[in-house]
């Protein structure tokens, strides 16, 4: 196996400067994370039967421990939800109920001899058997997985990975890299038909910042570092990566690279493909990397793009050199309300045209706007809308239809003077589309809710509502129609499936020169539905067909994984599929990385 030896001499140097990160998420994830839902154990929405109110627990988020008086009424009305009966999750399964690890004693011994921490405990394997799709969470709560990894390994460095990959390749075992487990494409799920031993390669213990280069403003990190740890550590040094996907509290650098992730503040800092300067990927054929750490390279096709988006099916990403930026002096939120979605969207387009986007600019449709209002502590719905909009409400908002209006949220970063200029420009553009500034708090809440909203699904499931999101990217001239058609399509499918209570809404989360990103939320009451996960899958599938028909993509950042494979060949053409398969065959002839994402590799 060529390529391995060459790298060893770097090791000593790294150790001197490396930052050993004490992660918020420990090796035993369940110490802080839920086993059957999203996020921290201490943070969740709960229904307080006595007060008949919903509350968010814990103090990690600003929304914590305040009453949300409006939610229950709204959910009852809009979803016909019944808070008197809940559908609680099953308890964490006892150790003896898990499928026996399918691993020969011989191979287990070999693994033990690697000197890498490992476990065959059921819970550890279960925790790494899934991402965050509805399907997985529902399965965790109410049934069980057919296939989970047979053994979990925690390598602590690049060399560990090399040894492990070699072992797997020599002994016909499968490796599924596992970062933060936040995938929403079933990318980390085990292929049910896989009979070989499946190793879950958990990168979490490989999370050092190996060095920071202040001159070139780059940092070399091991791939297992998760977003919040990375930010915290860089911050201590006065830097930021600026990469903030909504999952950044838990998702890992390696995961970002493997899925082509996109962060909220990409306008300032770029997406992962802009941030990535150098990457190492360990494959059964050796390590794919470059011999220089340069800002740009004209040297044939860029293999970084083979690594990015590989979704665990070509090798393990071990070390990544990413750009870092000095921390901005100031951060400021803002918001603009528009009379209707179309006005808001036109404004987004204009902002993109003038390339004056602040760090983040998003547009919530009326449905999301209303939902955001509901998550506000306060007395009455009407009062809430007034709140923050008060000043101009009296004079101007009367012209707005509460059933149509939508809100744009803004996040500015930079020094104060820069921000002032930016603000002025954005608000002026907003005004030409009938928009009115609606204050900082509204903006700030919008961004805060982004992190909290992921928690809501667990509560919803408990009261027989399924919820899921999906996203796409689309050229500007097709964006509005795409939003409308997808909503119609979902509504139509729901109705024809006999689902009376559902919600479909969307927001524009990113803008580009040539188009934008649309993010949809779908939820429905599943009381009368036999198999909610299947029905949801059906609806989402129709929605994706509609997206594609409207000129949208298979995905902007969630990736293909297993649930979007159906649309992959048409997306990249037959030749594209063959090219990918040829690459796969070259890098991984024995299909060690048999995770089965993107296309079924017939190897």
């Amino acid at each position, binding site marked *: 196996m060529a390529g391995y030896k060459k790298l060893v001499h770097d090791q000593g140097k790294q150790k001197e400067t490396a930052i050993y990160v004490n992660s918020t998420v420990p090796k035993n994830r369940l110490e802080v994370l839920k086993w059957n839902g999203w996020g921290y154990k201490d943070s969740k929405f709960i229904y307080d039967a006595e007060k008949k109110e919903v509350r968010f627990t814990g103090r990690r988020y600003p929304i914590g421990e305040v009453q949300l008086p409006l939610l229950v009424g709204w959910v009852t009305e809009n979803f016909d939800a019944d808070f008197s009966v809940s559908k609680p999750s099953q308890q964490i399964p006892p150790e003896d109920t898990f499928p026996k690890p399918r691993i020969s004693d011989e191979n287990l011994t070999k693994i033990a001899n690697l000197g890498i921490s490992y476990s065959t405990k059921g819970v550890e394997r279960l925790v790494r058997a899934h991402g965050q799709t509805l399907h997985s969470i529902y399965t965790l709560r109410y049934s069980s997985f057919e296939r989970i990894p047979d053994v979990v390994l925690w390598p602590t460095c690049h060399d560990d990975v090399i040894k492990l990959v070699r072992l797997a390749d020599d002994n016909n075992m499968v490796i599924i890299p596992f970062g933060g487990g936040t995938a929403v494409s079933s990318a980390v799920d085990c292929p049910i038909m896989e009979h070989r031993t499946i190793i879950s390669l958990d990168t979490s213990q490989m999370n050092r910042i190996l060095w920071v280069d202040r001159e070139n403003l780059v940092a070399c990190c091991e791939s297992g570092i998760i977003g919040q740890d990375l930010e915290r550590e860089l911050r201590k040094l006065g830097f930021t990566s600026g990469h903030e996907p909504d999952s950044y509290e838990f998702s890992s650098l390696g995961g970002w690279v493997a899925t082509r992730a996109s962060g909220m503040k990409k306008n300032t800092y770029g997406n992962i493909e802009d941030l990535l300067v150098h990457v190492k990927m360990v494959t059964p054929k050796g390590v794919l990397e470059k011999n220089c750490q340069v800002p740009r390279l004209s040297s044939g096709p860029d293999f970084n793009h083979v690594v990015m988006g590989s979704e665990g099916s070509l090798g393990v990403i071990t070390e990544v050199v990413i750009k870092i930026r000095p921390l901005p002096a100031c951060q400021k939120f803002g918001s603009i309300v528009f009379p209707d979605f179309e006005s808001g969207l036109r404004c987004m387009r204009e902002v993109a045209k003038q390339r004056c986007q602040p760090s983040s600019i998003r547009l919530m449709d009326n449905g999301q706007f209303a939902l955001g209002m509901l998550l506000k502590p306060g007395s009455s719905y009407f009062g809430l809308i007034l709140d923050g909009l008060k000043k101009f409400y009296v004079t101007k908002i009367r012209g707005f239809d509460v059933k*149509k209006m939508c809100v744009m949220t803004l996040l500015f970063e930079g020094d104060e003077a820069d921000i002032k200029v930016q603000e002025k420009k954005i608000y002026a553009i907003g005004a030409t589309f009938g928009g009115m500034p609606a204050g900082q708090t509204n903006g700030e809440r919008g961004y805060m809710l982004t992190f909290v909203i992921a928690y809501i699904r667990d509560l919803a499931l408990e009261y027989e509502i399924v919820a899921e999101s999906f996203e796409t990217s689309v050229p500007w001239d097709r964006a509005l*129609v795409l939003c409308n058609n997808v909503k119609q399509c979902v509504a139509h499918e729901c109705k024809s499936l006999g689902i009376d209570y559902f919600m479909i809404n969307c927001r524009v989360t990113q803008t580009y020169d040539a188009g934008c990103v649309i993010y949809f939320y779908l939820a429905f009451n599943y009381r009368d539905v036999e198999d909610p996960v299947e029905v949801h899958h059906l609806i989402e599938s129709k929605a994706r067909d509609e997206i594609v028909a409207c000129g949208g993509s298979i995905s902007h950042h969630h990736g293909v994984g297993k649930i979007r494979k159906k649309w992959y060949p048409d997306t990249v053409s037959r030749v594209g599929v063959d090219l990918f398969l040829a690459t796969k065959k070259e890098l991984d002839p024995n299909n060690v990385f048999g995770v089965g994402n993107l296309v079924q590799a017939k190897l």
Partner: protein
Amino acid sequence: MSAAPRCYEDMLASRREEFSNFMWASRHLKPQVAYQQERRALPQYHKDEVLKCPKIQELLETLSQQQNVAREVLEAQVKSILDEIGYNKKLKVIRWLGLALVKITKKICSGIYINRSAIVHVKAQMGDCPVIFVPSHRSYADFILMSLICFSEDMAIPAIAAGMDFHGMWGMGTMLRDTGAFFMRRTYNNDSLYWTTFKQYVYQLVTKGDLPIEFFIEGTRSRSNKSLMPKYGLILMILKAFFLSQVPDILFVPINISYERILEEKLFAFELLGVPKPKESTSGFFKSLSIMKEKYGAIYFDMAQPISAKQFFGAKFNKSGHNLQPIHQQEITEEEKKLIPELAHEIVLQQQKHCVITTFNLIAIVLHHNLFNEKSLMGVDDLCTQVLWLKKILEAVGAFVQTDDVRNSVFEALEVHKNIVRVDESGKVTLVWNQIVLDKANIGKLKAHNLSETTLTTCVPFIMLQLYINPVLHYLVDCAILVAILKQQALTPDELFGRYHFLRALLSQEFVTFSTREKMEFEVALENCLKLNLVAKNGDVYETGSDKKSQDVVSGCIDGFIFTYFVVCSVLLQSVDGVIDEKTILTRVQAEIEARLNEDNAFIHPYSLSLDTITNCLTTLSNEKILVKTRSKNSILYEINPAGVLSVKSKLEEFVAPSHSLQTKLESIQLHLKTKL
């Protein structure tokens, strides 16, 4: 299949009860729109958007460079084109018109019978995507009725695609425009500025409008009272938005409007013979409103189950086919175009399925049979018995026949149609011959052969009668073909299908059908024939069944058509140089038929003179590549493939050769007719 029982209620009933309809006409309106838009688009907005859209702007750019004309000049042209096209919406006009129409219809109609549950069903599906109303087109009244019913049933009054002929009518044009009509030129030239603008306007209405859109898929009023071949122009413009995924779906609502008596019956009869249609003018229109003194009986209005384009086309086309260019530069592809005929035909089929057969339709068939096949005229009792008998047959083949008490219905029908049929002094039912007054002005300029005045006066009543037979024929044509074939000889199923296929295809223009349905329709018809004893199975072969009378009635329905087709073939074969223009064909065929009409030994149906039938025949022969049609400046030329024509003619021969027994039977009636004339 429409399992729900069809049930019609008189929309005018509650209007008759009111002392004044003013309150009704001025009530608060909250109509159901077709496609709820976030922003409500007003008529002017649509025009502005069309002008602003990149497609038109880019075209202006190109044209201004090509023709070296200032862009502003061209832009002004587009504006005036849009003013010519664009609909308007004046609620006041709509209300007054509603009031007036109710007054008029209450006077001249016995009722406007609507299938309310069907309407409610359609309404319930409206709101989420463009909805297209596609009514059958048998009369100018269709326009007005549609809007009246929408107004009355709280549906948004549609934007209606209307021909420019209306536009010219003083007052009328404005009124129609104010109630939602938009206008389309009929000339098919390549005025790209006009057509691009028009198409963009339709596209705008489909994608951004909230009103239903109404258009007539048959393209024009059917003069024959039969369905016409669907036209693909407008439906294509409408479907563009769907194929480009610019709308979630499009719902097409086939609508049937059946008239007990058509306002334009006399005009149509003349037009079919070649007496030119008077140019639409307001005074002409009001003259035809002398109609006000007459009775027109019942009007039936029914909506079929909406057809969703999304469901209809399913996975038949590449959904991402339009993804790689700016959306405004996309056009519907050839593959997509190919899918349209099937939908268009389905719409026409549904229009037919929702037609209502009235008592007079039955009377017309019975009387027609009586006049041609029987020795003496019938009395009213006999007529009633036969009407009832025929009703059963038609119901057996799936028709919806609206008669309650037969005797009553027959008398009412005779009253409404007393201009065509009367009961004479001796109590016999017969045609009215002597009331046809010819408008001198028009006779001079007959479109084809110069038919004699006698021919015209003789034929018009028959043709008017045929107008009421025609709408029933799509129920009977398949059975009629089978009977006609088996009357010649018994056949095995395969042979039978072979011959059926030949005739059905030949008549596919006449009795609109879509090729993919042929086998299925054959099987259904065969089953019906067996059920009705029209056909019997004898071992391996099929032969005519025991019910001779039914056979004659049924097959008699298509005799006249087959005869015309036969004569067309003969005329074509007489052409020496193999190329012949359309006018000559029409003239010669009519001349030939007129000559035969005047011979004493056989009775030829006057409807055989119908130019409509002759043109249908030419179209079919062209479609089958037996003729090659070319258009020159002022004429249409046909290049003939003689072998092909000969083959068709010889296959038709057996169906037209008059049999002797029939002739003798006919003599008395023939005499009877002659003396009467």
